């Protein structure tokens, strides 16, 4: 089970109403390498990964939900009081027709989130290598969003999230090293 802390992992501030930026940010909400995919991928893989790294997947998967919440807050604030005309001008006309101002799990192009974005192969090395790739892809996505965004407050939060991807990638690499070790064998080669 989880305990919920009623605050964000890192503060989210938005300097101006900018539905266009929200449209790009939604990639990290319901996109293939977004935070939802990450959280569900790790929390699901953890059951069939060796005991030594279960806790790592548990903790990182949990943190991904905290990131998801930050992205949601950004998207919400960026679009909160935008008029239908402003949303349409930002390319969110179709989104407005289907969802009003509600958030939805889809990517920047509007494709709904799908479980085919994630995998659980049951092979520990295969799963961890997928996780490493996912972290690097999420890092890259944050870079490209920062490149497009001129909102200094949003960029501050996005740089925090990008840094977390780096730390997570580091931990997954270490998990692979743990599983590679010749643990219970006398080392005579």
């Amino acid at each position, binding site marked *: 089970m989880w305990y919920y802390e009623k605050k964000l992992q*890192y503060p989210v501030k938005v300097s101006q109403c900018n539905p266009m930026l929200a449209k790009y940010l939604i990639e990290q909400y319901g996109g293939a390498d977004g935070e939802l995919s990450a959280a569900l991928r790790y929390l699901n893989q953890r059951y069939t990964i060796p005991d030594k790294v279960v806790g790592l997947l548990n903790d990182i998967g949990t943190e991904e939900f905290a990131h998801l919440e930050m992205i949601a807050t950004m998207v919400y604030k960026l679009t909160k009081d935008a008029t239908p005309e402003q949303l349409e001008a930002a390319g969110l006309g179709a989104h407005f027709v289907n969802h009003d101002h509600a958030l939805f799990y889809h990517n920047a192009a509007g494709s709904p989130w799908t479980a085919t974005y994630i995998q659980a192969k049951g092979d520990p090395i295969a799963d961890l290598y997928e996780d490493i790739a996912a972290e690097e892809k999420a*890092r*890259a996505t*944050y*870079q490209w969003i*920062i*490149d497009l965004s001129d909102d200094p407050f949003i960029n501050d939060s996005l*740089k*925090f*999230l*990008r*840094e*977390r991807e*780096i*730390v997570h*990638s*580091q931990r997954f*690499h*270490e998990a692979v*090293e743990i599983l590679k070790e010749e643990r219970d064998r006398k080392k005579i080669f």
Partner: protein
Amino acid sequence: MNFTLVKCYTPYISPLDPCKPILKKCYSTPPNLYLNFQPTNLEQYPTAREALFRGTLWPFLYDPYYLKREEA
């Protein structure tokens, strides 16, 4: 350990390229690529506040990201 967080290269520029060519292209090589297994007692930021601000407890793993268009 000595390493850089960005690597750059100069791509081939064709005389027929329609867009204004970018002469130098750069990509991120974050610090985790160089750490292998994190050693014990790696130096930490002096305050929790700074660690939160950076997004990591360890200065080694901190990678400030600068806009791509500012790098070239």
